[in-house]
């Protein structure tokens, strides 16, 4: 009987449970068409990066499966493959397979056997005409090379552990300088960027929330000290602080980038959370909690925190976008993720030189993926803020 009396959902009592903040917000969010579309896009990106993280897709992004700079499928006629631009290949008079999609080039810049291949090719007179068959191209040197490679063992950067026999002329999204699939790379890059963005945002949010809670709740000396700390970090322009820390931390890696961004980006969260705690700490429910003997920490994080968590959530969402953008710049400059990890930033870095040669697909892929995710995430954040705090609108 007692349980029935407490349970507000009991229809017998005739009391309908009034919807809480979250269910109301969810209702408002669902009614917003832009919010729903952007949420679906963000979730799709998250699934994509989870799948990549667990190696379900794009695991083999490092494999060289196509010819160098293989064009995207849709534009296969618009570009001459890189092979023809090489001085060595210029003498190669073998007939092209079909129009512009020409002979694959078996020489790879990073291949430790490059010299050997060129020499052997010269000896063979290049006229074995691998391309004549048109359908299945077999490198006449493949056997010799595999043998040599076995002797050489695994090569330096793992670039050469590919059998060079079958290389595609074009890929859905094209290929990069080494013939790696741009689609796989851009998916792998999404994983890195999203992972870094979320991890750094979580670090910054936790730091900003905890410090802000202490400053706002305790006030007095604690507040002064933390405000001093805040003023130090906020007086140095964000990007300068990031670069200064990047200069000091020598180790490159995903963790370093997360730390750099997280340790510098907490200031605006601190300010907002502090203001919320100032507002809430004198409210009746907190005094009631005090009266029943809840400790300070309990009042701060069990009683007050759920009431301000919507502010924190919006900030978290805002910072994911900010940090994804920052990570791209850091990785572009070479201060971000290590070379063996692909990120949108490192793809943009590679595409700089490719563009001058006319290979625009890597730039396009990284740009479009990033722009779609960031736009969707920004729109979602705006909608989330409006849904959680309708007064703001």
């Amino acid at each position: 009987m007692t349980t029935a009396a407490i349970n507000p959902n009991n229809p017998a009592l005739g009391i309908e449970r009034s919807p809480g903040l979250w269910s109301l917000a969810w209702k408002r969010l669902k009614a917003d068409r832009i919010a729903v579309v952007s949420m679906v896009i963000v979730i799709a990106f998250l699934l994509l990066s989870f799948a990549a993280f667990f190696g379900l897709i794009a695991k083999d992004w490092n494999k060289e499966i196509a010819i160098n700079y293989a064009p995207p499928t849709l534009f296969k006629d618009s570009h001459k493959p890189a092979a023809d631009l090489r001085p060595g290949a210029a003498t190669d008079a073998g007939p092209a397979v079909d129009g512009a999609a020409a002979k694959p080039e078996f020489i790879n810049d990073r291949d430790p056997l490059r010299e050997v291949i060129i020499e052997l090719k010269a000896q063979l007179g290049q006229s074995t005409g691998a391309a004549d068959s048109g359908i299945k191209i077999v490198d006449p040197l493949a056997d010799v090379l595999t043998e040599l490679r076995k002797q050489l063992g695994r090569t330096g950067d793992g670039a050469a552990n590919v059998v060079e026999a079958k290389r595609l002329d074009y890929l859905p999204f094209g290929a990069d300088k080494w013939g790696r699939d741009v689609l796989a790379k851009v998916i792998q890059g999404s994983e890195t960027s999203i992972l870094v963005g979320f991890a750094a945002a979580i670090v910054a949010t936790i730091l900003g929330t905890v410090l802000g809670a202490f400053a706002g709740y305790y006030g007095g000396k604690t507040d002064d000290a933390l405000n001093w700390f805040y003023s130090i970090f906020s007086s140095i322009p964000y990007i300068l602080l990031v670069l200064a820390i990047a200069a000091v931390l020598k180790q490159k890696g995903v963790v370093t980038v997360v730390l750099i961004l997280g340790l510098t980006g907490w200031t605006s969260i601190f300010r907002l959370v502090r203001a919320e705690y100032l507002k809430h700490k004198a409210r009746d429910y907190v005094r009631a909690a005090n009266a029943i003997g809840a400790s300070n920490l309990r009042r701060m994080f069990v009683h007050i925190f759920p009431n301000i968590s919507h502010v924190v959530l919006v900030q978290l969402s805002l910072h994911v976008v900010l940090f994804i953008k920052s990570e791209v710049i850091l990785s572009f400059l070479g201060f971000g993720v290590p070379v063996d990890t692909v990120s949108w930033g490192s793809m943009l870095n590679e595409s700089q030189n490719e563009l001058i040669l006319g290979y625009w697909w890597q730039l396009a892929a990284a740009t479009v993926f990033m722009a779609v995710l960031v736009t969707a995430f920004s729109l979602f954040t705006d909608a989330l803020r409006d849904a959680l705090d309708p007064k703001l609108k």
Partner: protein
Amino acid sequence: MLAYIIRRLWQILPTMAGVILLIFFLFNVVGGDPAYLLAGKISNPEQIANIRKQLGIDEPYWMQLLIFVKQVVTFDFGASWSTNEVVSQIFATRLPASLMIGIPLLILETIIAVCIALAVAYVRGSFTDRAAMVTCTVAQSVSILVYIIVFQYVLAYKFGWFPVQGWGNGFLENLFKFAALPILIALVVSLAPNIRLYRTFLLDEVNQDYVRTARAKGLSENRVMFVHVLRNASIPIITNLMIQLPGLLVGLFLIERFFSVPGIGREVILAVERSDFPVIKAVTVYVALATMLANLAADLLYKAVDPRVELK
């Protein structure tokens, strides 16, 4: 007024002390021993000891901190570790190029952003307004790197309208030839967020009673928007401008790097790449100081813009 300025300057001291401590902690404690780095790969202990002595890092931490404070106060950070150029000299020679891009950018950006924001705030809620906001969101989502790469490739390399990169000696040559494309790119990048921001500032004002009164008096819409609304929205706009000002020096680092503009931002990137600590330390400390002074200047400007503001 004077008392206010003095008090505010006095308040800068503890923050400045904190900035110095933070930078010291980063570069002298976390940064570790740069002697190995400077001595190169082949080095004997004697050389390393020598370098340490030269840099003053064989001293205890409190002594190093004192040296650092002295450097900050006397503007004397010694020479760059990689080029041996005196750090103050680096500042003096790199500043003009950064300002050459930064000042025209700030002026153009403010005028254009305020005008567009006024226009979209005036037609708030309409299709134009929403279209403009979506455009801004999308424009903001594209990385600044893409703008630079594409604009440089298309406008400079392909069409040849601007030099691909470089910097000259003459003032006019620099401003109209070499700085033009960097300013254009920076303008495109910074317009989107600023239009959105200024629009919200203006929207806060357009629903106020005084706007209705102004209209009731029969003032023209132009006068209402440009004189009444804009003047009242100018406080947050000025704050935003002032906050941007110091960051502008280093904020243009990517553009300066791509276009080989010999400015402060490019110098910072080079310094980070070369682990050139004195340069980074100096830039960080003085830019932080500039930020605090800019905040003070913003507060003083409030008073000029809005006589109701009382400086306490």
